[in-house]
């Protein structure tokens, strides 16, 4: 499989001189399976650049897996040019949202309304197919299987495991490790802790032994306390997660939008130094980087 990062920034696009090396586009990851099926993880602004390249390969069939519906993971979708061109087939996968009572179809519907976008949803000329995914229910695309897992974020967020011919990738989308809402000693603390433990084990099992884990490492340990509950992990929590899951390579992504390239490298190096990473290859995700596994 091939993995290519088209957007690695969290929250909001952050172009400028200080983010040139790692890139300012929001989340978009291209995965090409061994049988050349095209899987795209999230449609942040990075998907627009990717679309330019895809115009050389039309017609295409793309399987876009949306981890969750926050802007930085969907904003590029109306600019994904192949959706407007007849002959292309786009499958958009995403979770059911209990608040709106809708699946991934709403991601396009909401963004392509008159006030926000000049082209109407009905004017998309490709074949679009919406699929509401469920946790643990495997989706097969050729020889590849994709398994969604519910993670922890302020909106329903699915992490996706992609398995193809003995190789595997897990992308968290946005994820903050669960924390206890009770104080130690309070009624409810122990029960809640047991629930968290159970969920932690189930999340680790979902990414067990992956070749590549791509995880949300927005914050440093120092920044985290003031961002608790915002739904993002730290470099340290990602390293610990990767180690617990026995992942081989960890890509830290969802870079904080105000973080310059120099700072990013600095805080990343500090976090790595805090851990024994003998059996783990820890990397910073960088826009434009690609690897083959």
């Amino acid at each position, binding site marked *: 499989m091939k993995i290519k990062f088209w957007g690695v920034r969290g929250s909001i696009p952050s172009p400028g001189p200080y983010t040139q090396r790692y890139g300012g586009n929001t989340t978009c990851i291209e995965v090409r399976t061994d049988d050349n099926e095209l899987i795209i993880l999230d449609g942040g602004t990075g998907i627009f650049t990717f679309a330019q390249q895809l115009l050389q390969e039309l017609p295409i069939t793309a399987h876009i897996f949306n981890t969750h519906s926050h802007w930085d993971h969907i904003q590029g979708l109306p600019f994904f040019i192949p959706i407007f061109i007849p002959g292309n087939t786009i499958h958009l996968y995403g*979770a*059911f949202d*209990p*608040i709106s009572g809708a699946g991934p179809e709403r991601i396009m519907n909401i963004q392509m309304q008159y006030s926000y976008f000049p082209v109407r949803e009905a004017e998309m000329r490709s074949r679009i197919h919406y699929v*509401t995914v*469920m*946790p*643990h*229910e495997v989706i097969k695309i050729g020889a590849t299987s994709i398994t969604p897992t*519910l993670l*922890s*974020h*302020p*909106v*329903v*967020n699915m992490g996706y495991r992609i398995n193809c011919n003995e190789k595997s990738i897990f992308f968290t989308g946005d994820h903050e490790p*669960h924390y206890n*809402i*009770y104080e130690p000693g*309070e009624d*409810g603390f122990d*029960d*809640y802790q047991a*629930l*968290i433990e159970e*969920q932690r084990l*189930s999340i680790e099992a979902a990414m067990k032994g992956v070749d590549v884990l791509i995880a949300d490492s927005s914050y440093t340990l120092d920044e985290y306390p003031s961002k608790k*509950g915002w*739904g993002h992990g730290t470099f340290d929590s990602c390293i610990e997660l990767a180690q617990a899951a026995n992942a081989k390579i960890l890509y830290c992504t969802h870079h904080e939008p105000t973080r310059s390239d120099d700072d990013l490298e600095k805080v990343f190096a500090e976090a790595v130094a805090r851990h024994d990473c003998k059996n783990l290859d820890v990397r910073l995700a960088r826009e434009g980087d690609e690897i083959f596994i």
Partner: protein
Amino acid sequence: MAELSSELNKRLSDAVGKMPAFPKSVQRILELSRDLNCPPKELVSVIEKDPVMTMKLLHIINSAYYSFPKQITSVNQAIVFIGLNTIKNMALSFAVIGVLPQQNSAGYDMQRYLMHSLVTASLARILCQKFNKDGTDPGDCSLAGLLHDFGKVVFAQFMPAEFKLALSYSAEHKVPLHIAEQQIIGVDHSEVGAMLVEGWKFPKNLSYAIRSHHKPEFFNSTLQCCLYVADQLSQHKSLNYSSSNNYEIVEELPPALVARFGGNLDEIIVKLGDLSNVMAEAQAFAQTSKVAQT
């Protein structure tokens, strides 16, 4: 006893989905949802005190869209699985529907219902913690206590004329309400409550407990026993929180339950010790609901 037709069951299920919640919880959820730093545990404590919100939340969480490996029976579980902010917004979506009217055309006292449900929930939890021998989750007992009489709210809300007649029949003939409901409506609140939670994919042990909560002869689980005894204890004279409109008649415990809990109702209540906290907490929630509505 007649069973609910599947058509009526569907009609009631759909109606309950749009049913407003209790005034106090609606007020608190609206307050909490405006507070960026709202303590999550407060949100939990509000939702789990409101039978309508709890019903709806567990219904959506247990729906086919998430296919969790096991059924979700608590608000905390729901938060760990689906996320705090999503649960907060679900609660808000329930809150903005409005509030359940204190006065309904059936003349059924909603405040008293809520008080009884909350006290039964707490007692069922305590009974489970004290007498549980088989690993039954005290949280499930509490949930059963909270929801066991849900059928009454459904009657009051959606079949007020029939329910009013049943209430009068119970008062005039001095018979328990479920007997009166069977006479007048043809089906009692335990059956309606059980059908609803069954249709809404709640765990089977919960629907069994709700369905059988006036039939101790069918008991085979700790959940059923704790719910039954809690239901009876909550109407015990020492806890009697309202002298008006008490149509329920406290029944004697069957011998098997006397043996299980080591005594009759008077003796069990002594074993449970000081319950003033339980009463005060329930009262605070049920009473303020009246204030919130005015």
